[in-house]
Every structure is written in C-alpha cells, then in structure tokens.
C-alpha cells in the first residue's frame, strides 16, 4: 500500500497527529499507510510525548491484528520512518520513535547555533537587524517560542539531515505527503513553507529525487484557536497571533499558493476563546485536545481519500490545486454530533461512538462479565490470564488515553461533547479519566435519542444496556469463531460495538 508521510510540526502538529491516531483507532481508514514524522525541537514537550506514546501503543495493537478482516478497529497501518526504511532493505542509521531531533539545539542558545561570535562585523550587523537580543539569547531546546524567524533558520537544518535523506530514499511514486503546522506560532509557521520548498526542489544533499519533486502534497495550516495567558517573562504573547497569521498568510500567498506548489491546502481556525497556561515549552506544554485538532486530523483523512485524478501533478506542478475550509452547521458553546455537517458525521460519528462503547465496556464491565459464552465458550478464552497479558494492558493504556482525549475535547473551548461524560481530574486539574453516571448507556450520546422497538414497551422483554452489549458479544463470538485470543477479542468487540450502535443509535 502507498504511504502517506505526515509531517507534524511543533506542538500543534503533535496534537493533530494525536487526534488522527484516535480516529484511526476507532476504525476510520485512509487509502495509505501512515508514516508520522514529528518535528519539534522541544524534546520534552508534553504534547509531543503524549502523541508518541499513543502512536507506539497503536502500533503494538495494530501489529497483532494485521490482516484480520473481522476486526475494524486499528485497521490503518502506522509505521515509523525507520521501519519503512528497514522494510525497503535500504541502509540507514536513522532510528526514530516517530520524532525527529534537530541537531545542535540541545542546550544551545540561538546565538551559539548560528555561531554568532565568529561572524564578521557586517554579518553581525545584519543578524542584529533580523533578530533581537532576546532572539539571540533564546534557548532552542524548548522550541522557537513563537519566533518563526528563528524557526526557519534552525529547521532548514532538518532538510539537510540524514533523516530527511532517508525519507527521500524511501519515498515512492504513489506516496503522498501531508504537512501539519500552525500559522501563528514558531516551529510550525517557519517549518511548513521551508519543508514544502525543499520537497518541491527535489534535491536532498545534492541528489535529485524525481518522485519527491512530483509528490502529491497536502497541508493544513492551523490559524489561531487559542490564546495564552499574558506573562511579562514569557516570549509568547497571543496578542501577536493575528498579526503573525496575517503576515504568514501574505507570505503563503506568494510562496505557497501563489507559486502553485501545493496540491491541497486546508485552512482551519476558531475564535480563540480559550486561554491556555503560558508554557514556553517542556513537559508543561501539554494543552487539552481541541476540536480544531480533531477537524485537522479529518483533513488528513480527506486528503488521503481524495482521488489522484482530482489533485494530481503535471511535471511537478499541481494541475488543479484545491483549497478547503472546515465548517460546522451552527455555532454553539458546546457542540455535539448534531452540529456537524453530513460529510463529517459520515466520517466520524459511528466510528467514534463504537469505540466509545467498546472503551467504557472494557473499563467498567469486562471484569464482571467474563463468564459469558463470548469469553469462555471458545478455545482461546478471555480470562484473568488474558487480562494480565501485554496486549490487553497496552490496549487498556491506549483506551485510557482515548478517554482522556474525549474529556479534554469536552473541557476545551469550543467544547466538543458528543457524549455525556463526567471528568475525573487530578489536583492540578489534569484530566485523569472520565466516568459515566448512568446505567442507561444508550442515552449517553448527546442529542441522539435511543432507538426503541416494540419490545421496549413490554416490561422485561427487551435486552437493555450492558445486557444487550453482552448478547451482541455472544453473537459476534459465534461469527468470529476460533482464532488467536487477541484477534478474537478485537473481532468480537468491534463487531458487537458496531451492532449495538446501529441497533440503538444510528
């Protein structure tokens, strides 16, 4: 299968890839194997680390289920660049865990990175025109803190790296590229046009790559959707977000869309009503998931599923570049499925809901429902031994991340709250899990009424709530039959979740 290299630049890039991972876990499929490449100088970045964690867990789960048609969760393959290189048999020293480190930024000030002290006086003057004293003294280890002028210099180095060459070597004719960046920050705003220019150029370390030059490239440029608290000490000030966005859009008008270098460009933004803590980087830069990031992840799915005849190239130039925006039906402080347009609903509603029910069943009910036929009547049983195995533990960890992601989407502004859930928080207000407080589980989808049949009107006749879920698990187990325990588990649960959601909701 062809590959889609997804470059996630900066904190926004990492958060969008996190949302993409959740969508793929819920069963949404693209036409490509996804190869995430996260570029962020901020090695300790909380958002980056959370994304890498879920990507690794996704991979472990997906590998166990490869080729098993009866399961529809975790269907889309996700690979690291080094795995792609290893598969192709090429020689490379690149070892990545989805993230790429930029050489020379560890413990370095920008001044040291550009070797300022050894510049001749004229260049020093020129540098002083382009960069403030604060810029020059800036510590690069925690990112570019909203300074694209620094980012563009440092990120230029990535396109000359061995990792970038490995990417170019592994890139094949039908592969595609997608770049995620925010337009109002530092890393993403600087990285996107630079990366695009270097890819279209086709030369990497003086070697020409025709496939790269002719690549179908898509990108999403995320416009301001949050503010940060004002702090005198911080270099990040959200008052500048709009002017930075305007300046960058002006630049893109000439150098991205204006020179016809991109096949599909997606624009997205929001009213920026939410205010985050002003963390310049590091482990504390751990922002709640946001609906904008989820929508941006949908753009990647849309790009992958767009037919080549619509967005193809002619000798390195997009023939019909497309520009897309994302919208919902109506504005509200808290949105649910009813606020989404039909295309969006078709893409995410069933899948996310199915995964939600699968998830809460595992969290709240599985342990007490291991005596039913779906668990015990087959050669490979779901018992306490299975629950202690690494596959289930990894799945449980991933599921917890999924629940936290849902909780964060709900807490953020604009709030995306498809389900009626309560948030569990730590003392420092971090969401640690979600809980449901009703036993009527099919009333949990906000704005959607539970479907009723005639049996529901005769007391005691219809199977309800978790009993209906277990009945569907038993039925699904008969269809899935005997296979390895891990495959059987996912097959049974994905089929049963699919059936209960279509029986009781939509």
């Amino acid at each position: 299968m062809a590959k889609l290299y997804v470059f996630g630049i900066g904190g926004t890039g990492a958060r969008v890839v996190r949302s993409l991972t959740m969508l793929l876990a819920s069963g949404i499929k693209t036409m490509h194997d996804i190869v995430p490449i996260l570029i962020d100088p901020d090695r300790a970045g909380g958002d980056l680390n959370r994304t890498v964690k879920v990507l690794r867990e996704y991979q472990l789960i997906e590998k166990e289920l490869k080729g098993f048609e009866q399961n529809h969760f975790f269907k889309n393959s996700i690979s690291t660049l080094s795995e792609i290189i290893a598969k192709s048999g090429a020689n490379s020293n690149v070892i990545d865990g989805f993230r790429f480190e930029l050489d020379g930024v560890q413990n370095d000030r920008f001044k040291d990175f550009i070797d300022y002290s050894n510049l001749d006086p004229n260049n020093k003057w020129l540098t002083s025109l382009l960069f403030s004293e604060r810029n020059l003294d800036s510590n690069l280890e925690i990112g570019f803190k909203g300074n694209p002028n620094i980012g563009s210099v440092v990120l230029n180095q990535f396109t000359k790296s061995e990792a970038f060459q490995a990417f170019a070597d592994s890139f094949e004719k039908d592969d595609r590229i997608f770049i995620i960046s925010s337009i109002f920050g530092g890393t993403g705003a600087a990285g996107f046009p630079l990366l695009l220019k270097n890819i279209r150029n086709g030369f990497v370390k003086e070697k020409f790559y025709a496939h790269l030059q002719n690549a179908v490239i898509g990108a999403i440029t995320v416009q301001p959707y949050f503010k940060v608290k004002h702090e005198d000490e911080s270099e990040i000030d959200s008052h500048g977000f709009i002017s930075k966005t305007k300046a960058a859009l002006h630049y893109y008008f000439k150098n991205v869309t204006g020179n016809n270098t991109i096949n599909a460009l997606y624009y997205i933004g929001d009213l920026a009503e939410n205010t985050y803590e002003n963390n310049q980087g590091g482990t504390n830069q751990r922002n709640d998931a946001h609906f904008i990031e989820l929508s941006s992840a949908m753009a990647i799915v849309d790009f992958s599923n767009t037919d080549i005849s619509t967005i193809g190239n002619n000798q390195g130039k997009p023939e019909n570049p497309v520009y897309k925006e994302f919208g919902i039906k109506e504005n509200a402080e808290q949105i649910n499925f009813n606020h989404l347009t039909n295309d969006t609903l078709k893409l995410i509603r069933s899948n996310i809901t199915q995964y939600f029910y699968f998830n809460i069943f595992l969290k709240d009910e599985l342990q007490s429902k291991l005596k039913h036929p779906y668990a015990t009547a087959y050669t490979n049983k779901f018992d306490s031994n299975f629950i202690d195995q690494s596959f289930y533990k990894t799945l449980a960890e991933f599921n917890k991340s999924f629940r936290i992601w849902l909780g964060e989407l709900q807490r953020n502004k604009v709030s995306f709250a498809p389900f009626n859930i309560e948030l569990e928080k730590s003392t420092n207000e971090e969401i640690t899990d979600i809980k449901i407080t009703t036993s009527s589980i099919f009333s949990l989808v906000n704005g959607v009424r539970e479907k009723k049949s005639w049996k529901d009107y005769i007391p005691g006749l219809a199977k309800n709530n978790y009993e209906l879920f277990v009945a569907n698990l038993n039925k699904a187990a008969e269809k899935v039959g005997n296979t390895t325990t891990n495959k059987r588990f996912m097959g049974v649960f994905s089929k049963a979740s699919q059936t209960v959601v279509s029986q009781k909701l939509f």
Partner: protein
Amino acid sequence: MNDLFAPVFEFFYYTVPFSDDLYEEGLYAFLGLCNILLSLFFSVLFYYIINRPAFSKWYHWLIILLINFGVSFTLGVVLPQTKFVALGIDYQNEYYVFGLMNALIAILFYTVISFIIRWWSTNAKQTPFPH
C-alpha cells in the same frame, strides 16, 4: 409406544396392580410423550426463546427445571387419578409416588435435551455449567 415407555416408568416405580392399570389404560405412552414434549418445550424456552445473558446462570436453568418438575408432577398425579376415578378404581398414595417419579423422568429428559441443544444457544451455551 406404550411398550416403549413402560420399561422407563417401571424402572423407577413398579407396583401392582397400579402399574398394570397404567399400562392397560395406555397412560405410559401418553405421559411419556407429554414428558418429552414438555421437557423439549422448557429447554427450547430457556435456550432459544428467553436466551438472554441476564438469565443464563445455572440457577436460572434450575428454575426452569423446577417448573418442568412441578408441571410433570401435577400431570403425573392428575391424569391417572382422573382416569381411574372415572373407571371406579381406587388408589391413594400411589398417585403421588408415581407423580414424583414422572417428574423425575421429565427432568431427566430436560437435562438430556438441554445438553443436546445448548451449543446452538447464543447466550446460554455454557449453562448449567461450562463444557
């Protein structure tokens, strides 16, 4: 049919002249068929009609078995009594002992049928106990 069921009934309970009268009146055949049909009905009811996770524990199966027992006991008492009273034949305790044996035979059928048909039940394939 009478000859088919007579050894079964008489294995559990044989006393003259009560058993001979049952045989003569063809009640073994009738009660035997009733037992099989009732047990089949209760098994199908439990495994295929009720067939739900919330009613699939061993004690749920036992509840149905006891209902089967009760119905068969009543039938085993009432049917011979009605017949013999009409014929002017007088028995006392025999009806109840025979009714008890009839109910035991019925639950034996219920158990055998349960184990034959349970695999095709979605929610109770391991009731009353796992394979």
